């Protein structure tokens, strides 16, 4: 069974559109994350939620809005998409919010903005 899943896998859209990426984990974890992977393969954290509450909100444009309807889901909504938003976005989860907890990653969503 897939532990951390993301939908869609690929997303191609036009500049200015609004889109959402969904993430679900079936591990019973309390904490979920969104990362953006840049062209050099660096992973930059965007948001972290613990039990549906926002814990980390790094310097991310406010066009990006995470939503956690329950602790098993963390969705990422992006308004007014820009070319620079093109990247692979990874969702992850961990048991708790401690920095030593192992994070389990989803397969990624490749977003292409034309």
């Amino acid at each position, binding site marked *: 069974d897939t532990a951390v899943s993301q939908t869609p896998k690929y997303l191609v859209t036009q500049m200015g559109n609004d889109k959402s990426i969904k993430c679900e984990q079936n591990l019973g974890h309390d904490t979920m994350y969104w*990362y953006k992977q840049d062209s050099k393969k660096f992973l930059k*954290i965007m948001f972290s939620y613990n039990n549906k509450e926002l814990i980390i909100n790094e310097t991310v444009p406010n066009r990006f809005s995470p939503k956690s309807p329950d602790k098993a889901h963390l969705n990422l909504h992006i308004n007014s998409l820009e070319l620079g938003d093109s990247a692979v976005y990874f969702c992850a989860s961990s048991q708790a919010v401690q*920095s030593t907890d*192992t994070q389990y990653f989803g397969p990624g969503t*490749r977003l292409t903005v034309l």
Partner: protein
Amino acid sequence: EDKVVQSPLSLVVHEGDTVTLNCSYEVTNFRSLLWYKQEKKAPTFLFMLTSSGIEKKSGRLSSILDKKELFSILNITATQTGDSAVYLCAVEKGNNNDMRFGAGTRLTVKP
């Protein structure tokens, strides 16, 4: 089904020891293998390997890929307490940077 398996799952050593972390994979349309070090928030990128037999080195860390036997190792020599972290292996497949992460190896280096 794609698989990325890391071993051991956890490892405790003393400062000065040398450790070898393993990552084996079974994926279709392999593109590259990446190693990350996860300490606090975001995993830190270490290496990307695409060719067999070419060692990549960064200080006390080195890594090599074997595309025939489908595995990679990450070596850390003269370990220090600051090396304590979870080390993640990830495999890129296809042309669209589709990635699969392993579950990680938790390394603890004791003084």
